[in-house]
């Protein structure tokens, strides 16, 4: 199962990636672990997770075709 992950702000800068396609990710904890393993610099960066454009606050299953996003705290306005 492949899912698309968007990366924003400082997370985009540190990974050098605006989007990734990941295989074998079945929940949001696995997603974070995979990103931290591939990009160790992201480990201590505060991060919000959106699944289909909704913020999730606890471990959440991921299904095929969902749109994932990893986002640093917002600083608009």
């Amino acid at each position, binding site marked *: 199962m492949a899912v698309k992950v968007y990366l924003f702000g400082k997370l985009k800068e540190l990974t050098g990636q605006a989007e990734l396609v990941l295989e074998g990710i079945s929940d949001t904890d696995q997603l974070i672990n995979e990103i931290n393993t591939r990009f160790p610099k992201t480990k201590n960066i505060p991060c*919000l997770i959106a699944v289909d454009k909704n913020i999730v606050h606890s471990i959440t299953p991921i299904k095929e075709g969902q749109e994932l*996003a990893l*986002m640093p705290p*917002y*600083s*608009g*306005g």
Partner: protein
Amino acid sequence: MKGQVKNIFIEGPISGRFIGEKIAAHQSKTIIGGHSIFLGQVRGDILQDKKVVAIEYTSYPDMALDIMNKIREDVILKYALTCMHVYHSLGKIKAGEICLFVFTSASHRKAAIEACSETVERLKAELPIWGKEIFEDDSFQWKVNHGGHGGH
């Protein structure tokens, strides 16, 4: 994206002229008694001895527009607004330029004023937008918003 979701993003700064035109466009709405406007302007702060010359804004636009739509519906209903307009810049906005324009209108002033303030707090807390502060030597740091009372 739903059909009724309005775009709020403008590439580059928001000009005084644009704001003036949006104001003038409300003359036909004679149930309006008060307009409240908030404008965010990029500050030329000195951080660690270096001057901020610009902020570069990026967003997750699809998510931001969905959330702004919800904020708009909530606030219009709560304050019985006649209308609300919100614009946020993307891209590099120089110090002194305007990057945020929130515009609320109602029959009575208190509704317009409170709605404007609440919209500003909510969009700062809830919209996925990031600012990168760029210094005169081209180095940068990611902007951190210091609270207010948030919108939650």
